């Protein structure tokens, strides 16, 4: 702090070159504003300077600094590299990791202004969000993640040595295919503690080794209870059905998996769970970071720590980042989370400081409270995209963005119906629909394991609840189901049922004996 006070009034950097003391000065100046004026609460920062090739590396292992080996990451790397080499796509300016210390990558090619932008954006914006948002607090363990990944990488490498690369690769392929349905959506009793995971795995194995006695194999089996009389409800309860976390179910109940395969499923499941909050908070996370970097950079400029030229350069990048093309633009693909998040947060600031009568009617709690940063801090802490849009998308913003809703029913032969526009009648409908588009419970197909035919052929039964006659993709589903059957090792049936519980479609898969070579019993 003392050092930066001395710098006050002086420019943090001149020209576009930077060196490590520059980064330190920028960080300290940003920290002063972020903690002092915005009241942010962040993990300690760790800033890593990397090359563009390393950035590509990081891309392909979903942003993590270390990860286990799998061909799919090589595929992503090749893909990104091809695009990058042809100049078709720029690399992201930064990658930031939800860990403690919070690691942000800076690319060496960026100039000093960009580095300042990235530090403000990632090291303070994202960092604050990671540390304070309730989803991240509930589902992720920032202190433990890097250690856990280290364990995962080592464990999978050891499995490859012991059981062969092919067997491990097949298990991972199957687990990856089910990754989107390998998360707990509702909080359980315990908080995750990834650091305990490695210890638990060792304990499990040690226990197995301790109690192993080959004699048990030779003991004749006792009188078996007839399974037919176990009622459906009891059976379901025993297996914890219905279960929407398919990977969890397989890990616990798949009859013929080896212990190491269960551990691999567990690893994939933990990784999926770790990224689960990020999927639900794209708009908020990026909006927060963008809002924070905008505030910090503007303050730095006001305090004379960034020159006018650099500030204009920053504004140009900032404008690019928050650009939202309209629906008929060639560049349009979807809502830009940076743009939507930033616009909503600016709008909230306006409502808090300078509300209209309409705002007072729609947002009585926050209108005119006059302390935008503390209102926003509360919002950042306790909402996810769906609830954030559902609560805070204001009529003002709907008008400004000229949002409208389309209703596309294949039975309507005339065309697509415009069901709501930015008027009195449309505000709530548009807001509800947009919020729903960010609800992954709505956008991801809801698939549950509902029953296992334990008495008969052990067939696994899953159900997909079809919403709005919107079926699963036929060919993809077949592939995923095949993986699922391989893990379960018996037949798998997936029923698609509509709202009236009627089965509209069925998919069946039979197991291939892929893991036969690794089975001993």
């Amino acid at each position, binding site marked *: 702090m003392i050092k930066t006070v001395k710098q006050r009034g002086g420019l943090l950097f001149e020209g576009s070159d930077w060196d490590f003391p520059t980064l330190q000065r920028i960080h300290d100046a940003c920290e002063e504003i972020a903690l002092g004026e915005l009241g942010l609460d962040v993990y300690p920062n760790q800033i890593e300077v990397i090359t563009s090739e390393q950035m590509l590396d990081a891309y392909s292992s979903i942003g993590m600094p270390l990860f286990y080996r799998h061909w799919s990451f090589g595929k992503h790397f090749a893909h990104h590299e091809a695009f990058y080499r042809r100049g078709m796509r720029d690399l992201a300016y930064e990658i930031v990791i939800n860990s403690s210390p919070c690691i942000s990558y800076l690319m060496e090619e960026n100039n000093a202004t960009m580095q300042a932008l990235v530090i403000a954006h990632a090291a303070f914006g994202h960092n604050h969000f990671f540390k304070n948002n309730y989803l991240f607090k509930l589902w992720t363990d920032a202190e433990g993640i890097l250690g856990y990944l280290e364990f995962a990488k080592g464990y999978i490498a050891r499995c490859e040595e012991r059981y062969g690369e092919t067997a491990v690769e097949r298990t991972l392929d199957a687990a990856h*295919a089910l990754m989107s349905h390998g998360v707990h959506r509702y909080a359980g009793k315990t908080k995750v503690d990834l650091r305990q995971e490695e210890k638990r795995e060792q304990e499990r194995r040690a226990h197995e080794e301790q109690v192993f006695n080959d004699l048990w194999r030779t003991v004749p089996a006792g009188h078996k209870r007839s399974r037919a009389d176990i009622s459906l409800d009891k059976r379901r309860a025993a297996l914890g059905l219905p279960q929407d976390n398919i990977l969890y179910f397989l890990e616990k109940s798949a009859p013929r998996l080896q212990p190491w395969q269960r551990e691999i499923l567990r690893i994939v499941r933990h990784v999926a769970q770790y990224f689960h909050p990020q999927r639900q908070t794209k708009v908020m996370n990026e909006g927060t970071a963008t809002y924070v970097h905008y505030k910090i950079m503007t303050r730095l400029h006001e305090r004379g720590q960034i020159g006018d030229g650099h500030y204009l350069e920053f504004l140009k990048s900032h404008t690019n980042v928050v650009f939202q093309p309209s*629906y008929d*633009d060639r560049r349009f693909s979807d809502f830009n989370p940076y743009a939507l998040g930033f616009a909503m947060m600016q709008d909230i600031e306006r409502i808090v400081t300078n509300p209209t009568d309409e705002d007072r009617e729609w947002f009585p709690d926050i209108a005119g409270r006059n302390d935008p940063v503390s209102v926003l801090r509360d919002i950042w802490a306790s909402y996810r995209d769906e609830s954030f849009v559902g609560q805070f998308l204001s009529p003002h913003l709907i008008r400004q963005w000229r949002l409208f809703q389309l209703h596309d029913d294949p039975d309507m032969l005339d065309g697509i119906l415009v069901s709501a526009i930015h008027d009195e009648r449309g505000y709530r409908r548009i807001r509800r629909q947009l919020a729903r588009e960010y609800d992954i419970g709505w956008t991801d197909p809801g698939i549950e394991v509902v029953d296992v035919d334990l008495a008969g052929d052990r067939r696994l039964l899953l159900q997909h609840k079809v919403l709005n006659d919107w079926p*699963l993709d036929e060919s993809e589903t077949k592939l995923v189901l095949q993986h699922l059957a391989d893990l379960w090792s018996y037949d798998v049936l997936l029923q698609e049922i509509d709202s009236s519980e009627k089965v509209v479609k069925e998919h069946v898969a039979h197991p291939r004996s892929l893991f036969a070579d690794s089975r001993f019993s």
Partner: protein
Amino acid sequence: MHIIDRRLNPRGKSLENRQRFLRRAKDAVQQAVRRSLQSGNIRDVLNGGQVSIPIGGVAEPSFRRGEGGVRDRVLPGNKDFAEGDIVPRPEGGSGGRPTEAGEGDAEDDFRFVLTREEFLDIFLDDLELPDLAKRRLSETEEVTPTRAGYTVSGSPSNIAVGRTTRLAMMRRIALRRPKPEEIEALRREIEECESEEKRLALEAELKSLTDKSRRIPYIDPLDVRYRRFENTPKPVAKAVMFCLMDVSGSMTEHMKDLAKRFYILLYLFLSRRYEKVEIVFIRHTEKAEEVDEETFFYGPATGGTLVSSALLAMRSIIAARFDPTDWNIYAAQASDGDNSYSDGSLVGQLLQYEILPLCQYFAYIEVGEEGEDSSTSDSPIWNLYEGIRSDILPLAMRKVCRRNQIFPVFHDLFQKQQAHSKTEP
């Protein structure tokens, strides 16, 4: 706050993943490489290049919703729609949702760049020199060290720790070296001992024990053993490839281009796949000369045609430098098929009775004009060789008229064959 400079970290962190991906996509990549060879310029292509493979074998499926169903969607930038308007579905789009092109299923082809090494490895993957049978024990430097027991002298890096400690332990047990615990126990006993007399006896015993343990060392130089290695000669197949090219006036630029392309492939194949292959370049007009590769590929020449001159040159080179009992001899000849009439019988004699019996494999490529149909009139040489060809003689013949035929023909000639590989030891 920490700033860490990661730029100097080891590169290629994802190399392993990349190789796994290539292995996984091997078949598709191989086909893509073949395809790109047929169209592209060989020089460019062999510098590595971009290939695109169908997504099939490397798909990463997940549960996703497909087409169909009732959908609602919010979009920005309304211009003139009012509530209740009906917008016609755009033509041709699947399901009429123009805005969803970015959803990710447009990835039916997967493009990426292969390095030169990767490209060549894949390209040459299933080729080999046929019938590489003569594997002589070379008297020269080709040796590999193999383990051959233990020795009492050697370099410290070869010390066999396990064996040494075992011998030391045997010796210690045999000579009854007192164990440290025994001495320790005795010491304790002395400390606790009260009667003077007994103590003296114990002390004497202790002294004898410590003396003994000093006399008998824990590890003696006698115990030390070293791992012994013996050099065993490695069987090496020695091979020589003769490249015979007609550069006479009757060869047009196009034909020369085809022939050179063929030899470039051959050269790449041999130099990458076999460390111990000699290549002899012979070009001929009405007289033959042995040249270096630079001249062979790029030197200009012109003149009449006498094929026998090349065969004679080859024969004399074999006689002078490559003993057929030690060397696997291969030859690839490229020509437009013209030869002076009087030369025909000599060529036939040479080939049938002198050259072919020495060779493991003799490939003949006849190059033709572009657009010429390869099945029309046969040239003098083709007719001559056709007559000589029999099941016993290792002669293969192909015609090439267009650039895109080069690779298939080459691949055909040098493909791995079951029958041949059986003859290998």
